[in-house]
């Protein structure tokens, strides 16, 4: 085809809607630098380009510019402080969050440990109460009161069960010095006292102490309490504060 025959197809070519064989012919003319077709297609392209420029204006996102520059290996220099600032802010935020969670985690761990401690304490208390209840409810348990004759003496009762142990319930116990503790003894007939455990009184002067295990009532004359050093003693070193003679015990 010659240029004259192709002339009316330049617009179609510029719009990319030319059909064969005209499309191929125009392309061939352009490839061989045909000045007539080059000029004709260029005029057609000017019109189609103007149509493109008349598209409704729209705003791309701010990220697009950075994406394009980054894709050719270029950083955005003019606003490079902004990503740095944002990165610093992000790092700071992450640190704050990390510290927050670390603190929270530690706090939760502390709370969990505290609760676990309380649970262990309550469990131990339940065990003690269960032991105390077993002694109190045992058919072979005998009880002895003490302290009734003193002006404001430690008062209370001792419960002895041959198979379950000894239960001491006291009140009016004086506060021990800081380095001292109460120690309970099983006073045996014709033999040295046997240590029966350490305990402290409550702020109100009350105390409950259990020495689990078997007790030989025949060889045990009394249950006594002395004040000893924190580590306890093998034998009493002070005058007993409490002495409950089992000879006068009564079956419950």
């Amino acid at each position: 085809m010659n240029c004259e025959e192709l002339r009316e197809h330049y617009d179609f070519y510029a719009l990319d809607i030319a059909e064969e064989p005209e499309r191929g012919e125009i392309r061939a003319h352009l490839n061989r630098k045909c000045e007539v077709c080059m000029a004709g297609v260029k005029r057609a392209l000017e019109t189609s380009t103007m149509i493109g420029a008349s598209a409704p204006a729209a705003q791309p996102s701010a990220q697009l510019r950075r994406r394009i520059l980054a894709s050719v290996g270029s950083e955005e220099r003019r606003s490079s402080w902004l990503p740095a600032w944002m990165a610093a802010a992000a790092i700071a935020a992450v640190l704050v969050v990390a510290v927050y969670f670390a603190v929270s985690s530690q706090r939760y761990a502390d709370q969990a440990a505290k609760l676990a401690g309380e649970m262990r304490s309550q469990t131990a208390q339940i065990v003690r109460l269960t032991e105390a209840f077993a002694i109190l409810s045992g058919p072979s348990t005998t009880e002895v009161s003490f302290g009734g004759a003193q002006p404001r003496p430690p008062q209370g009762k001792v419960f002895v069960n041959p198979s379950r142990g000894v239960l001491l319930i006291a009140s009016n116990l004086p506060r021990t010095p800081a380095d001292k503790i109460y120690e309970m003894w099983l006073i045996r007939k014709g033999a040295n006292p046997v240590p029966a455990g350490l305990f402290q009184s409550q702020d109100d002067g009350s105390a409950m102490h259990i020495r689990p295990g078997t007790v030989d009532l025949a060889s045990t004359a009394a249950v006594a309490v002395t004040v000893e050093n924190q580590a306890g003693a093998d034998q009493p070193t002070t005058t007993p504060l409490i002495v409950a003679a089992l000879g006068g015990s009564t079956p419950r």
Partner: protein
Amino acid sequence: MGVCTCLPSRDREGVGSRNAGKSTSVVRAGMMLPLILAVYAGPQDRALIARLQRRDPQALAELYDFYGKMAYSLVLRVVRDKAIAEDLVQETFLRVWNRVHSMDCEKGSIGPWLLAIARNRAIDYLRSSAGRERNAVELDEADHAPLYHRMEAEILLSDQARRVKAAMDKLAPNYRTVMELAYFEGLSQSEMAAKMGQPLGTIKTWVRTALQSLRDELGVAVSS
């Protein structure tokens, strides 16, 4: 193809300074704005092309600052999806970056070339995603970069765009429809004929008449 060494002294008058000139001209020059922009447009395009050919990333940033919104608007009009439009615009600028050596920096008009690439990317995407037939022999903008040599730079000015839009609005509905189907929807003549229920010959006539009407309208506008 060699790298242009032309106009090194004009490098600092890139598109960015052109924008600065535009903003101040609006205040100072009023009605003189289109003329000022037309005067400024040519040499900076040459300098910009030269800098792009020297792989100056800042030149690409300036190119985006001037044509990015225009390319995005065109592509979005075609694909009607913001995320896809941004991907295609990125692809367009990369294509320009990689093929700018095919453009003669003494003669090239990079804006129209870039818009042609953008439009071709968008139409190609549209045809592919719709499962429509893609042209076996596409208008290869890189091979034909010379087609954009010495193209009038002011055809992309916003004032001219408004005239084109007004001229499009003046077209009879059937003419406007074929222009939009062809340019923004990428329909072939046969597809337009099927869509509009018209013979192929009628579609050809409508396209030619629509384009001639646009030229006549714009010619009147320009001369006035």
